[in-house]
């Protein structure tokens, strides 16, 4: 979406803006941020201090969201009539730049703490038992849309490939150079699906052909499209938006 590009270009301005706002807030901010800073032991005198304070709070919010996450709590599901049409396209680039993946040569690469790392072709993935859901996709920007996705339950797939489900993270790499990562508890949630269909058709390129990991328990940007590789790991993998400041956990 155009919005994305605009927001990205603003990224570079953030320290300057924060500086000017700091000046405006001056004493009040100094006093209360000082109190906050004592909690995390940050210096407040420079922007880096404010930045690390905010990042520290974001890491804290990751932890709180992990505690709040109930693995048995299901996201609400909706009737077919509630599906949003047309479903919005969203990526870090415009719709005219959607990557086209060749389904015939496509392979899903596996690495990290996985016993059977044989790559998967599309016919093999399509042959797995499929399930579907109609859930609300909530964007970090605030808007939401209801869609229908079908695919294999991710926890079943992880069991099939012998993934170490005691590991902390699963990282994803995508054909459009997007990356993201999730916690294992969310990966094992019953509504987390490795999806190949959108509505009643094969996932079209703009919605992530050949596959999108659908998690109604996380914000939209955490749901990677065009996945080409996944890794099970205990080392924090980060992600495209996460590395720029979006909260990593971003649970719903």
């Amino acid at each position, binding site marked *: 979406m155009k*919005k994305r590009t605009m*927001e990205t270009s*603003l*990224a570079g*301005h*953030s*320290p*300057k*803006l*924060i500086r000017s*706002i700091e000046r405006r*807030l001056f004493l*009040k*901010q100094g*006093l*209360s941020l000082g*109190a*906050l800073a004592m909690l995390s032991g940050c210096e407040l005198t420079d922007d880096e201090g404010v930045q690390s*304070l*905010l*990042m520290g*709070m*974001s890491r804290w*919010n990751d932890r709180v969201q992990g505690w*709040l*996450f*109930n693995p048995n*709590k*299901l*996201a*609400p599901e909706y009737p077919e009539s509630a599906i949003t049409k047309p479903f919005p396209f969203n990526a870090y680039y415009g719709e005219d730049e959607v990557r086209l993946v060749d389904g015939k040569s496509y392979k899903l690469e596996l690495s990290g703490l996985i016993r059977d790392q044989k790559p998967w072709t599309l016919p093999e993935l399509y042959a797995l038992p499929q399930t579907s859901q109609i859930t*609300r996709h*909530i*964007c*970090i*920007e*605030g*808007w*939401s849309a209801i869609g229908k996705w079908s695919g294999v339950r991710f926890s079943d797939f992880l069991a099939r490939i012998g993934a170490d489900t005691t590991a902390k993270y699963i990282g994803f790499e995508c054909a459009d150079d997007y990356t993201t990562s999730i916690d294992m508890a969310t990966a094992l949630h019953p509504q987390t699906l490795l999806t190949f269909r959108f509505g009643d058709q094969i996932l079209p390129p703009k919605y992530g052909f050949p596959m999108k990991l659908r998690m*109604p*328990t996380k914000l939209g940007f955490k749901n990677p499209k065009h996945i080409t590789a996944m890794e099970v790991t205990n080392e924090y993998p980060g992600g495209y*938006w996460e590395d*720029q*400041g*979006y*909260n990593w956990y971003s*649970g*719903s």
Partner: protein
Amino acid sequence: MEAAQAQWLKVHPLVVRVTHWINAFGILIMVASGWRIYNASPLFPFRIPSELTLGGWLAGALQWHFAAMWLLVINGIVYLSYGIVSGHFRRKLFPLTPGAVFRDVLGALRGKLAHEDLTVYNAAQRAAYLAIILCALVLVLSGLAIWKPVQMQELTALFGGYESARVVHFLAMALLVLIVVVHVVMVILVPRTFPTMFSGRARRAS
């Protein structure tokens, strides 16, 4: 010495003064960063001028918003607990009747509202301060409903679902900002109330 002390009246307890200023700072951060988050996907056909917002872009604004929420909620819990347990709310905000609020708001609009004794809130003040507390409560609850529409879906449903919780969150912000603007205007009109929010005391009107 005793004569000098008799000139002063206790107006605001220390807990109220400290939580007031932390709250003022927290609300400022929440509103300014919230406006930037609003701009990422406006609910209504207008945007907030960027100069009035905090965070620089969506990620920065979200970081401020989700950091300051802790300050606001912890401070709010301290303030509400103190207000209830100490009897501060009972003494200062009640009794409150619609008739008295109407009379005092009308008086304030005509510039004829008696404001001699700063230790007693008039009915217009009582209504405004109660409304601020209620707005803040609705903001926190609707905010949780937007943040956790799956884990706290019962709360989200109470607001009529995710999309209406966003609208409620925005409207509660708008009402709160309106009350704060009136509050600041009143302080400018009756400036001797301002130092009492730091010192806690006011000179006895003679």
